[in-house]
């Protein structure tokens, strides 16, 4: 039997036409997609196109399903009873009215007597309709209130052709040096927890992807000469894992996003040509000769700014006081980045330079930038404080370099506590920056509350070392 449309299951049991059940199964089985259940039921039927009067497996199953179904409907039935007990003002009052309307559709009923009654009725209709309308509006507002802050907005921000959030992947290097080398203490765990939480919140807000990678020194690398050069492998894996993402943002663990309200798009990528610079002479701590003076190269390789088209930027790197800094940098998925990542580690270069290149990938990248002309037109630099502000202690203890150090009044995007593991207090820095970020990003209600409590405190006691104590106690708890 061929059916013009697929038979639909009836809530009262079995299929639409129970007498034809078996032949229907046959029809389904022979057409588009026989699901295993169909096959099974067919099999249980005896497979012989048995007559519909028998108690078949299918019908028994349908009946039991019916029982379950009615049970599960209990709630809704209850609901229906509720609604039926509500006063009805449209149906009952207008039995004759409905008939009348059918007859004199679109016309004012004159035969019903006076204009007054008509207009009263019209007003009533309007009110009813407007009530419906206001209910709709109310519902819509409710919808906004419930969903705007999370799922709908998140969906919009994620979708590649709307907010474009899924084009960005944040790669966070966690568990640095852990694993074989050393056990992590409570402070290390706390740093990791804070840092990860911070990034998770950020990517959730903007719909980005977060890839937390375990950078513990693996067994696999400990006996290899390429120890701890996994940055490239990690980025490659992330590119494989998120095949539709375009930009990959590498972040070291000791970083903190101070301004989660900045999106990467508005902060950097919407105006790539003005937020980044390609002419390294603008800030050149390494004194790299730029542009190259090798006469035989093509004009683009010799131009200080490449082809000046933001779409040819494939790597965005900040520079600190001593050169490139790979604590926070961006790579775009492209053939160019495939090549640079392929060449980044090379055994011959490594063999000759690994004693000199103590910053590993960072030095290797500087080397490639200096020596291989094809690299330059695709690398752009970004002012350090846009994506990688340093705290005091990194690049000078005073912390007053306007190109490098974090400035609270400028609301810098991110702090990178670079080098805090050598003689500085990573956890203390992380904690104070987290507090600062929270304080800077309070909403008006929190500001109001804090204002009240501060004035209250100010009235009663004069010392203002609350925050210091706070830090101290928190640290005591940890250690």
């Amino acid at each position, binding site marked *: 039997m061929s059916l013009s449309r697929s038979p639909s299951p009836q809530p009262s049991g079995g299929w639409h036409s129970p007498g034809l059940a078996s032949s229907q199964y046959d029809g389904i089985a022979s057409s588009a997609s026989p699901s295993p259940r169909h096959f099974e039921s067919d099999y249980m039927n005896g497979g012989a196109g048995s007559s519909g009067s028998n108690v078949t497996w299918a019908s028994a199953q349908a009946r039991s399903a019916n029982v379950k179904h009615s049970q599960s409907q209990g709630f809704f039935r209850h609901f229906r009873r509720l609604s039926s007990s509500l006063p009805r003002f449209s149906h009952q009052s207008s039995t004759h009215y409905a008939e009348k309307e059918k007859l004199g559709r679109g016309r004012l009923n004159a035969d019903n007597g006076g204009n007054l009654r008509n207009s009263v009725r019209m007003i009533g209709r309007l009110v009813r309709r407007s009530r419906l309308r206001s209910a709709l509006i109310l519902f819509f507002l409710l919808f906004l209130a419930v969903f705007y802050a999370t799922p709908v907005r998140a969906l919009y921000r994620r979708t590649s052709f709307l907010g474009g959030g899924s084009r960005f992947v944040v790669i966070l290097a966690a568990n640095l040096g852990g694993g074989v080398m050393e056990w992590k203490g409570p402070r290390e765990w706390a740093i990791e927890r804070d840092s990860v939480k911070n990034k998770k919140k950020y990517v959730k807000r903007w719909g980005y992807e977060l890839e937390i990678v375990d950078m513990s020194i693996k067994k696999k690398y400990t006996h290899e000469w390429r120890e701890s050069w996994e940055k490239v492998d990690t980025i490659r894996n992330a590119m494989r894992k998120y095949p539709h993402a375009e930009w990959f943002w590498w972040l070291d663990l000791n970083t903190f996003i101070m301004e989660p309200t900045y999106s990467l798009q508005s902060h950097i990528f919407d105006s790539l040509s003005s937020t980044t610079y390609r002419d390294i002479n603008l800030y050149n701590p390494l004194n790299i000769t730029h542009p190259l003076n090798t006469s*035989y190269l*093509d004009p683009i390789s010799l131009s200080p700014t490449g082809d000046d088209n933001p779409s040819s930027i494939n790597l965005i790197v900040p520079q600190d006081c001593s050169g490139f800094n790979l604590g926070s940098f961006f790579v775009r998925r492209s*053939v160019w980045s495939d*090549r640079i990542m*392929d*060449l980044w580690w090379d055994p011959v270069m490594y063999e*000759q330079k690994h004693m000199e290149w103590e910053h590993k990938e960072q030095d290797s990248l500087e080397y490639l930038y200096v*020596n291989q002309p*094809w690299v330059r037109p695709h690398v752009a630099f970004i002012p350090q404080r846009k994506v990688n502000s340093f705290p005091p202690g990194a690049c000078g203890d005073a912390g007053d370099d306007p190109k490098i150090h974090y400035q609270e009044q400028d609301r810098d995007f991110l702090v990178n506590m670079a080098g805090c593991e050598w003689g500085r207090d990573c956890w203390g820095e992380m904690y104070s920056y987290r507090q600062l970020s929270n304080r800077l990003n309070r909403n008006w209600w929190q500001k109001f509350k804090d204002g009240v409590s501060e004035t209250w405190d100010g009235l009663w006691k004069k010392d203002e070392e609350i925050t210091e104590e706070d830090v101290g106690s928190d640290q005591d708890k940890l250690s």
Partner: protein
Amino acid sequence: MHFAFPPRKSSHPPPYAVRSSRSSPLLRRQRLRNWGLLATLAVFTIFLLSRYSGTGGSEKIPSGTPPCVIVTIIDQEAPSAFIRAIKDNRNDYAARHGYGTFFPNVTDYNLDDAPFTWSKVPAMRHAMTLFPYSTYFFYLTSFALIMNPSISIEAHIMDRERLETTMLVEKPVVPPDSIIKTFPNIRGDKIDFVLTQDREGLSQDSFVIRRGEWAKYFLDAWFDPLYRSYNFQKAERHALEHIVQWHGTILAKLALVPQRILNSYLRDPSGGTEGVYAEGDFVVNFFGCDLAGDRNCEEEMTPMITRWREIRDRRGY
């Protein structure tokens, strides 16, 4: 609802008909709503389109651009008659097919004390700068002659289908037993670098590179100062073998073809036979004539130069 019969008209007609426009505020509102929806949709579409207003278009190749450029590096210390013969050989071939030629000097490039054989790498980069729109760049050592001028590079070597039939797949890059082998499934038009292999390894006396971003990358990587200073036993030859074996982005663009397609040896010092020149081959290469002390390239090449002149004149072009 469908009735068997249309419902009867009212037997009490209304005293006057109502103006149609007044009768349908709902209809009017509907129309308004439709327009509103349409406008919203249009704005949204424009918004979406505005995000994708990228600039496209391929580069324009000016007319008269040679499709292929032949690069041969000249050592100015060689006898001038020999240099003239080599240049004649290339120029004659280029003129037949509308190709360009480029003859830089060995000393033109700063090699940082590396052997002069390295100069082929910057020379190719230089040629790509001088001929920014040509597609193929054919490097041929000065100790080789083009013996069959009727063969074109596009059709004989670089044509997609031709390349797919000639390229050697799953072949160890460095003979006899390198674990790195050429890729089995590359499309011919994805190949940017065609060269041959002799018994000892990759031969760099005769190869073709397609101009593009990859070519820049490849040449710059090959010419890296750390490779030049590394004292590879055979300089740029081993450097090339090194980068091909260690970097997949280079191997993926490379095709090995049988030696006689563009690099027949007059005689193979290592005793190979499959690459030995036979009349009709595209190129004859006097491989090794500049290495061993007792050989003299100019002398060895003289008979073949004479033969080439015969072929050129016999064909009567």
